[in-house]
């Protein structure tokens, strides 16, 4: 089944994106090319629905990705004809098309200048600000991108997406503490987001296992990681990613248990080894249940990503073989 055109296509696999962009000719043919924006037209029964414009936008993104420039330009033309050149969202889409068309760095610089010019006229144009940051990042100018993001967050501090982007930029630079701080801001804005909890747990785990961490930080990060993964499971039954992370962290802790651990105090102390062991067992049991049922394609268990399931199976097999080696 082809994915729906009503959802943003950024997380789709290449195959699915191709499927979407192949729908372009039919979608473009079946919908009228211009729709009057006069208030009188709103009185007449017309074919205009909000869905149509979301479809065009998502189609534009998919077509750009798969290199179908003709359809992309057509989508853009229709959006411009309806919303005008000075709509902020349309401006960002236009910039996106230009970025995709750019052949070399010089052209990218020119686009960047255009963005700066637009922002000079109106420096609260958030879609364009975001495009500018994304372009900076794409041109490997990470520090500049980070500082612009901080500026954006200065005047729009409730933008969870921007905080999340900032966390990602810090993370690829290896600045774990800053990344974790930014991710915690996302959680402040979206406290029920189970995937963000899991993501934060992964970041904590990365911070703990990064080379050259002090042992105090290590324990604190591991304790935090356990907490984050547990919270993500609490928010979402049978969450493969949460259980995978929990399994990974507890496994590492149990392996390290032989080493003398320093007493750490406060709320960040690690749980005792019995609790860790029980968490580990729970994660193993749940993971094997998920793997078994989703491999058997049981009804109601088919939503998991195949690659994620395969990774979980690998983790369990690896541990089983290690245990067998110890027994021998």
């Amino acid at each position, binding site marked *: *089944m082809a994915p*729906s055109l009503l*959802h*943003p296509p*950024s*997380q789709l*696999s*290449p*195959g*699915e*994106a*191709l*499927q979407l962009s192949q729908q372009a000719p039919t979608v473009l043919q079946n919908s009228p090319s211009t729709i009057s924006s006069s208030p009188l037209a709103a009185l007449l029964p017309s074919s205009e629905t909000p869905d149509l414009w979301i479809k065009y936008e998502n189609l534009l*993104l998919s077509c*750009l*990705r*798969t*290199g179908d420039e003709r359809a992309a330009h057509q989508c853009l033309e229709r959006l411009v004809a309806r919303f005008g050149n000075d709509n902020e969202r349309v401006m*960002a889409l236009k910039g*996106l098309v230009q*970025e*995709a068309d*750019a052949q070399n760095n010089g052209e990218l610089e020119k686009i960047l200048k255009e963005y700066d010019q637009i922002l000079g006229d109106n420096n609260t144009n958030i*879609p364009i600000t*975001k495009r500018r*940051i*994304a372009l900076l*990042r*794409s041109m490997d100018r990470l520090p500049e991108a980070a500082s612009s993001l901080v500026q954006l967050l200065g005047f729009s501090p409730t933008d*969870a*997406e*921007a905080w*999340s*982007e900032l966390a*990602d930029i810090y993370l690829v630079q290896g600045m774990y503490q800053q990344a974790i701080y930014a991710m915690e801001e*996302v959680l402040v804005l*979206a406290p*029920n*987001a*189970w*995937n*963000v909890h899991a*993501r934060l747990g992964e970041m904590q785990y990365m911070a703990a296992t990064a080379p050259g961490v002090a042992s105090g930080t290590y324990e604190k990060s591991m304790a935090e990681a356990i907490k984050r993964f547990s919270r993500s499971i*609490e*928010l*979402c*039954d*049978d*969450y*493969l990613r949460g259980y995978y992370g929990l399994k990974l962290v507890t496994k590492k802790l149990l392996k390290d248990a032989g080493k003398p651990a320093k007493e750490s105090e406060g709320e960040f102390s690690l749980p005792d080894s019995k609790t860790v062991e029980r968490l580990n067992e729970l994660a193993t049991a749940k993971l094997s249940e998920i793997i078994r049922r989703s491999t058997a394609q049981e009804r*109601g*268990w*088919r*939503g*998991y990503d*195949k690659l994620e399931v395969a990774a979980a199976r690998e983790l369990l097999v690896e541990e089983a073989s290690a245990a067998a080696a110890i027994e021998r």
Partner: protein
Amino acid sequence: MTWISKTITALGGLLLAHACYSAQEHSSLQSFRATAATLASSTPAAASLPIDIAIETVVATFIIVLGLVTGTRPLRPIQWRVWAGKLEREGVEGFMGNDGEMNRDYVGNPFRSLETRPGFIDIRKQRKEFANWVKSGGRSEAK
């Protein structure tokens, strides 16, 4: 389970129709008797329905309600973790209507955009990745 519920509803409907028909017949008989009685003497006839018709009507109503209730689709989960777990476990499949179409309000994990960040997409990187995917033979994982 739909055929069970449909059979129960149809049975209830049948009973209800039968009760209505009986009531109608009863009243016409009553009025006929009443006219006959007034012609003969002046004893008033009882105008109330016999108890069996009343019981049949009530039972038929309950059977219809039972049929309709058993025929409804399972309710949507109202606990956050159950709902989220359903999203993760079943994907789109759990949110199909009876006609096999995706529910219009299905959005998947509403927080996924915090990780994919559509406002910040790096279109050049995506194009490169797609080109590489095509070059590598486009191993089709599309369903």
